[in-house]
């Protein structure tokens, strides 16, 4: 009977421990009745003392290896199992479950890395994803250093689009871009998102030429008409009839774009591209490219010269505001870094060699600062005002309904401001912008400058035209830069051209071979005369 009572008493004790075991308690485990493991399997059941030397472990789905509040062997076993699980997940073959967040890092492998997330870089990403076969075949990574686009040329641009160029390829690029902008809601439609409104003003461009430039303007207009642009030539008298507020003194000829020209909101295009490109599966990384790891191979040209070909294998992307970098293995790099393309090209080894050779030819794209001023003139030209570019280089256009005007002027080579910062020089307006505009439009004698900003041109010092295509020596770096102020208006077409080059190996729709890098070495200038 005493035995019975002891058993009962001990049983109840076990019962008690079994029931309470999950929540509280410190099971000292030193009882001779053995170990009841952290399992609910013996909840309330009475274990015979002898048999409980054997340790039973049962799986309790509520616990799953963690023993809450139980010290002693039960807890240690749970910890060990946790550590085992973590090691298994890190070793190959297990599910990757890193103990810390890595979502801000770019992937370790990417087929194409686009350096620069402005309108050109996003356009290349869009067309790569659109033209790839099959769907989802290429992994594209866009590396952008500044997600606020505070210094990007796209966001600070005046937003004009014109076909009045002298180089036929420029005209073709611009014509396709206009067609892209017109059908932007078919190209960049994302299901369930509102349609884009790029606020296009179809008011056209009016270029004015003095006696000196009249002949060049005539031949340019002929080329433009051949390519399909709708441009008409106007004499000073016709100009006075159409726009009575223009002072035609000194104007010999004017060319007016009737259709496909005007200005729009570049920020909207950028955001639309970004949204669409994200929906197509392009990866973004907020970081800066700091290094290219490449390998070289030596070959001989047909004439027997030794040539060193380089191939970029890895791109080191340094994460913003951190010292951490991630090496991204890639097959192709696209340099769409705009005003900073020269630095990226130097990182890749473009231009490291004796000057005068192909190895020593640097990418001649540098940052140039340009000012834009916004002024208010209540008696100024009306709603019909086109984007007027004077013979002196000063330009202006209307902005909105409130008689505000945006304008500026490209400085001469000697007056180039220091591109180190984006500070505005207001004296430049007083000295260089206002006088020619006031002479051209007498209403501008009284105006009030409301605000101003500065932005960069990715200025091609060689011939002020874009560089598109692969580098001859660094074989897997493609350029899409150097547009010197007309990059925004050519971005959709350039993106498609680069995507064709990457996917098919040659241009299919618009032939941009005159814009190849090798022209810098060969000295063949594709000079664009109508640079604003």
């Amino acid at each position, binding site marked *: 009977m005493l035995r019975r009572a002891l058993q009962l008493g001990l049983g109840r004790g076990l019962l008690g421990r079994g029931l309470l075991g999950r929540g509280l308690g410190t099971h000292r485990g030193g009882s001779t009745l053995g170990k009841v493991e952290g399992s609910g399997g013996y909840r309330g059941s009475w274990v015979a003392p002898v048999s409980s030397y054997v340790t039973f472990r049962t799986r309790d789905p509520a616990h799953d290896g963690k023993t809450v509040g139980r010290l002693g062997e039960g807890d240690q076993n749970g910890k060990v199992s946790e550590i085992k699980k973590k090691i298994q997940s890190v070793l190959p073959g297990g599910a990757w479950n890193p103990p810390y967040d890595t979502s801000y890092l770019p992937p370790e492998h990417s087929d194409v890395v686009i350096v620069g997330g402005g309108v050109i870089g996003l356009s290349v990403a869009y067309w790569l994803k659109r033209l790839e076969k099959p769907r989802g075949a290429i992994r594209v990574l866009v590396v952008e250093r500044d997600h606020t686009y505070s210094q990007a040329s796209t966001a600070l641009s005046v937003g004009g689009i014109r076909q009045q160029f002298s180089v036929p390829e420029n005209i073709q690029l611009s014509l396709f871009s206009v067609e892209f902008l*017109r059908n932007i809601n*078919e190209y960049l*439609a994302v*299901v369930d998102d509102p349609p884009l409104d790029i*606020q*296009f*003003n*179809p*008011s*056209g461009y009016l270029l004015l030429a003095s006696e000196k430039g009249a002949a060049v303007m005539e031949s340019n207009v002929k080329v433009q008409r051949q390519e399909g642009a709708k441009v008409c030539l106007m004499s000073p008298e016709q100009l006075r009839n159409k726009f009575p507020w223009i002072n035609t003194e000194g104007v010999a000829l004017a060319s007016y774009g*009737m*259709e496909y020209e*005007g200005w729009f909101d570049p920020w909207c295009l950028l955001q639309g591209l970004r949204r669409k490109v994200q929906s197509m599966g392009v990866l973004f990384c907020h970081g800066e490219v700091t290094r290219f790891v490449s390998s070289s191979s030596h070959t001989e040209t047909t004439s027997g010269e030794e040539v060193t070909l380089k191939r970029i294998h890895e791109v080191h992307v340094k994460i913003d505001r951190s010292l951490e970098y991630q090496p991204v293995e890639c097959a192709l790099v696209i340099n769409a870094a705009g005003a900073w393309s020269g630095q990226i090209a130097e990182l890749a080894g473009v231009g490291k060699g004796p000057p005068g050779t192909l190895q020593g030819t640097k990418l001649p794209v540098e940052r140039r600062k340009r000012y834009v001023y916004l002024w208010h003139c209540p008696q100024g030209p*009306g*709603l*019909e*005002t086109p984007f007027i570019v004077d013979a002196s280089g000063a330009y202006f256009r209307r902005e909105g*309904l*409130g008689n505000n005007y945006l304008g500026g002027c490209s400085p001469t080579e000697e007056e180039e401001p220091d591109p180190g910062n984006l500070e505005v020089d207001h004296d430049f307006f007083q000295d260089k912008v206002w006088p020619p505009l006031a002479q051209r439009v007498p209403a501008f004698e009284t105006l009030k400058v409301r605000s101003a900003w500065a932005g960069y041109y990715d200025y091609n010092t060689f011939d002020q035209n874009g560089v598109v295509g692969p580098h001859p020596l660094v074989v897997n770096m493609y350029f899409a830069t150097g547009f010197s102020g007309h990059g925004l208006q050519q971005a959709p077409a350039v993106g498609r051209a680069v995507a064709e080059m990457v996917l098919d190996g040659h241009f299919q729709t618009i032939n941009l071979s005159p814009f190849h890098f090798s022209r810098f070495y060969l000295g063949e200038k594709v000079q664009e005369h109508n640079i604003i």
Partner: protein
Amino acid sequence: MPVWNRGTRGIRGLSRAVALEGSQKKGRSLLQFLADRFYDVQALREYLLQKQVLKVHQKNRPFTYIKERFGPHAAGAYFILKQGGAVKFQGKEWIRSDAHGHFSLDFLKFQAVPVEAVDASGCAINYQGLDSLLALKELQSLWLQRCPHVDDWCLGRLHPLANSLQELSLAGCPRISERGLASLHHLRNLRRLDISDLPAVSNPGLTRILVEEMLPSCQVLGADWAQGLPSGPEEQSQDRASPIPA
């Protein structure tokens, strides 16, 4: 009475409640099915969107055979009538398509009689479709009321009609803004312009003033200049809560 009993009457009611829960479960599994195939559903939706766009394109296709055989005026008239609009040839009556979209083809017999007026109200005419209209070199009156696809780009295309166009109506077009209206200054023979009810114009009153300045010999209808102004004194007297009834 516990809430779950509401709406259930006895045993049968309970079973109905259980059945509802069962169908909710089915509903949930349908959603689960769709969510598992997210990219397929997205592709399907993109395809349906593309089909809608293609429908509009199909409506605006050019009728080149009719143009070559019967001339640009007949082709333009055919295009408008096919869309559901109305055409008036010089010296003839208005030709309109009936409720079923049928119309008589008598106008094909007119030899080089120019089209004088076009009523394309409510038609799905877009940038491409304007090709057919721009060939009508002696068009005097063009009504584009409530056309859903006419936007600023289309207005920039109207300049070939500058010599003849005297009346243009853009009332109620949802996509036209003041930026498109700026390109109407080419139409120097325009005498009547209707720009009422343009929802995309940000400031109708100011726009009307600017358009009147831009086209001095044109009468601009709609978009009253007072529309853009806040109603000053009347609002104030209404706001003032006076205990004594006025």
